[in-house]
């Protein structure tokens, strides 16, 4: 197992940052619940890449352990979220987030 240079780390982190930003912007600008959900998954993956990259750079396996956790949580969450989306769609025949504003009450 060998380390890599800081310049290589920067590349990974840039990809990670890009993924996070794309996910964030997508989450903010789109109204479709499924797309918003996919965007959160993107942000997760961005964070996961950063963990793996920094873990590798520092010779520390905690980063990879963390990623395993993230993937597990994301999988569980995906199941739950998609189920909710199906239920919401049965209620209103739409997946527009603005249609569910009254959930604030």
């Amino acid at each position, binding site marked *: 197992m060998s380390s890599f240079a800081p310049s290589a780390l920067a590349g990974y982190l840039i990809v990670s940052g890009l993924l996070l930003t794309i996910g*964030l912007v997508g989450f*903010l600008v789109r109204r479709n619940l499924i797309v*918003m959900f996919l965007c959160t998954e993107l942000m997760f993956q961005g964070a996961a890449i950063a963990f793996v990259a920094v873990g590798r750079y520092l010779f520390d396996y905690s980063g990879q352990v963390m990623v395993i956790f993230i993937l597990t949580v994301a999988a569980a969450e995906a199941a739950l979220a998609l189920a909710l989306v199906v239920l919401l769609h049965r209620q209103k025949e739409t997946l527009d987030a603005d249609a569910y*504003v*009254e959930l*604030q009450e």
Partner: protein
Amino acid sequence: MNELISIIPTLAGTPSVPVAEVLHATNLSWAGFIVWMPLISLVLCGLCAAFKVKTKAPAIITVICLGTSFLLTLMLWNGYTQPETIHLFDWLQIHWDGGSFVANFALYIDSLTLLWMLFVTGLGTLIAVYASEYMEHDVGKGYTRFFAGVSVFLFAMTCLVMGDNLLMLYLGWEGVGFASYWLIGYFYQKPAAVAAAKKAFIVNRIGDVGLALAIYLIWSTFGTVQYDGITTALEAHNYDGSFGGWTVHAIPYLLMLAAFGKSAQLPLYVWLPDAMEGPTPVSALIHAATMVTAGIYLIIRTYPLFMLDEYALPTVAWVGGLTAFFAATIGMAQYDIKRIMAYSTVSQLGYMFLGLGVITSYGAAYHVFTHAFFKAVLFLTCGAIMHGFAGQLDLRRLSGLRKMKGWKIVSYTMLIGCLCLAGFPLTSGYFSKDAILAEAFVTQGPGFAFLGWLAIFTAGLTAYYTFRVWFRVCAGPVHYEAGDELHGDDPASFRPHAPRFAINFVLVVIALGALIAALPYFMPNETEHIHGGWIAEMIHDSPAKAGVPGAVVEEHGTVDHDLGHGNILGMDPHKAMYYISGIVGFIGIGIALFFHLFCRSAADKLRGKLLASRATRWLPTAMENKWYVDEIYIATIRSPLWILGKIFALLDKYLIDGALVNGIAALPRATARWFSPLHNGAVQSYAISMVGGAVLIALLMLFMPEIVEFIQSISAQSANAEHVVATVGGGQ
């Protein structure tokens, strides 16, 4: 009897203590039923109300219960030998290190108690009989409520009179005040009756504050509220008032305040005339014969305490004398006969206080006793007239009753009452009033002779206004107009309905009682030295024996009594007063005879003349308007209090409720108005704020070293500046 008891121990050869124990062992607990009977009556009346009884049952129950009370009182009086305490049950018993507060529900039976109880229960029974007919238009409606009120009153009054401590007296004192409120406001749909009830209650509260404070001071000074204990404490200090400091001097004035409130004396009399809004039997029983004499009872009961302050009794005398005169002048100019009787009650109560003040508790008690009868009869005849003439009480609209069929008993019993009230020679009122008038000249005191002359003049006024009523209403040509309680009948075809058996029977009995009330004056005395008949005998056993003529009293050093024997126009007052007051009474009656029977137009002419002249106009105007006392009270006491109340109401509304309560409640709402847009349900806006927060935290962490450095530089600068200022200041 007293001699007999004192002989027994010498015969038996034993000390007197065991005899006293034997006497105390005699079981008198049945006397408790004097108190319990009215309470039983109240409970039964309550049951009648619960089962909606539509008959006269409440009246029958009340009469039987009160009659039993009266009979028990008679039995107790018959077997009376010496003062005794009858313990009913433990009430308040609080003990602690070095002190205690004991007030048992116990009866103190001495002759003073018995004197009061005899006329309270006796008249109570008779007036309940009278009311059974008088109130019959309310059978099934307020009938039960009325008799329940009478029962409450009698229960409270027996507690007041028979209690062996001041706390029980206080219980009764408040109880009679409550019963008075209950019964004045009996016609609760009439605004005037409700206002009068409130007025009576509130004015009485002012006096009751005095009583409560007095009881507290008595307890803190003497360590007890039981009459026995107070007497023992006074004897231990040899009736020298110097031991208690200021409290000893404050107590009589506080008690006085209480007595003046309950007995309608000068500053606090205003409730009594208004109390006439209640049904007439109530006026007769509570507001003439019994409750209003509670003030006199209180002072007689605590007489030794009044002896401790030099000016206490003279104050009582002055207030009483001035009230007697003042109320008489108002009574002269009223047209409502029941109201005239009310003012005459205030005036006669004034006489009683004058009597107490000039140290003739005997005269005061005697006047209470005779007044109870003749004033009851006067009120009850007024009630009969009101009942028969549909509420008519105006003496200008009634005339010649004695010539009408069925009204003879009313007219002549009223005449008896009037004669007694006017102090006509040889009637009961004549003897009892003379006892007070004469003593005003016998006792040495500040201005007592002036008060005596004022009271004699007032006696003339009394004779005048009393017979003004009788000559107008009962004598002269027959004429009547119906009052305003016609219940839908046509005024033109109105026929008065004469009283029937119950009213007539009670009128005759009480009128005979008023006549017989003169006899106690002639009864021989059993005790040596004293004179004054049966009443003197009854008072001689009480704490107020200093006020009994001829009594041997060692206990008071402040007031000289019966020493100078006084004089009036160079004669012995006790003898001269028979002639003087008789003559004054005749003059009063004569003036009334001229103005109100022979030449009725002359009275109107005189009034017109007085009103026409600018110099004298104030006199009839002021007298007819009751000297504007109610208006003065409204201007000086009620309005300021009302304004103060309004100010507090506004403060309450806008400061407490508005600023504090609602203001604090509005604070979260206002904050919420600021923040509630954040909680709009749009997922993206939540995400934005989350991202914003995350970015902010990230920036803070990035630039943390710079921020710390910046803050350190600022604090260092200010510390430097201070240091510079300090060195510059130190350098100079």
